[in-house]
């Protein structure tokens, strides 16, 4: 009964919007990569600079109270790209500044994005151990 009364999410609108906005963020990333390559940077470094630039833009847009308004429409399109990771770091830092620079801003900065690092790094360490003990190195 609860299921029947609860409206479903508007997937017919959400999924194409996520595709469009997420795709545009990646296209911007591609443009930045090409730009840094044209400045003579090697492929890997250009890609890293592009990521850093996107993180910067996301932090700026989050600070200017714009990112959450794009995310209202973008959904996963603003969540999955690295800009979403940056937003998840910047927004609690801004929010919990009122509880102090150390225990507020500093401690709460990774309250949302922390798990990404915890499980990402853990997976990487396990991968390294598997490679090592398989005798690959």
């Amino acid at each position, binding site marked *: 009964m609860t299921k029947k009364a609860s409206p479903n999410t508007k*997937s017919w609108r959400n999924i194409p919007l996520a595709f469009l906005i*997420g795709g545009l963020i990646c296209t911007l990333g591609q443009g930045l990569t090409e730009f840094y390559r044209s400045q003579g940077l090697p492929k890997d470094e250009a890609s890293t600079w592009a990521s850093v630039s996107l993180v910067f833009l996301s932090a700026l847009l989050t600070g200017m109270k714009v990112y959450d308004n794009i995310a209202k429409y973008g959904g996963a399109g603003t969540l999955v790209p690295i*800009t979403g990771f940056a937003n998840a*770091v910047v927004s609690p830092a801004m929010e919990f500044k009122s509880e102090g620079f150390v225990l507020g801003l500093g401690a709460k900065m990774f309250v949302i994005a922390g798990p990404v690092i915890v499980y990402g790094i853990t997976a990487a360490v396990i991968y390294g151990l598997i490679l090592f003990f398989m005798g690959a190195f």
Partner: protein
Amino acid sequence: MEMLLPYLKAFAVGGAFCALGQVFIDYTKLTPARILVAYVVAGVVLGGLGIYQPIIDFAGAGATVPLTGFGALLAKGTREALGEKGLLGALTGGFTASAAGIAAAIFFGLIAALLFRSGDKS
């Protein structure tokens, strides 16, 4: 046309990663935080198995900008560090490869928090 091809590929592949994420949000009980964790871990696994690099070669930023790309970067860094430092590389590789992104998020995050204040939603 030749010029636009990399952009189209980045748009299509990056968009597809995001659309898949939206499917998870709308049709499963997975919260956004869990989806991000799943994407990163999936990136490490796909990167480790050597499946992700061809996607990066094809789509460029369309594969590196989504968080799966972050995971693949962790795997790549670990593999390279293992070659250089042996077992210690299993611990240093992930952070070394992702250092720029994480440090940028921390630094710009701190600056943004110092300069701006959160506002009401409308």
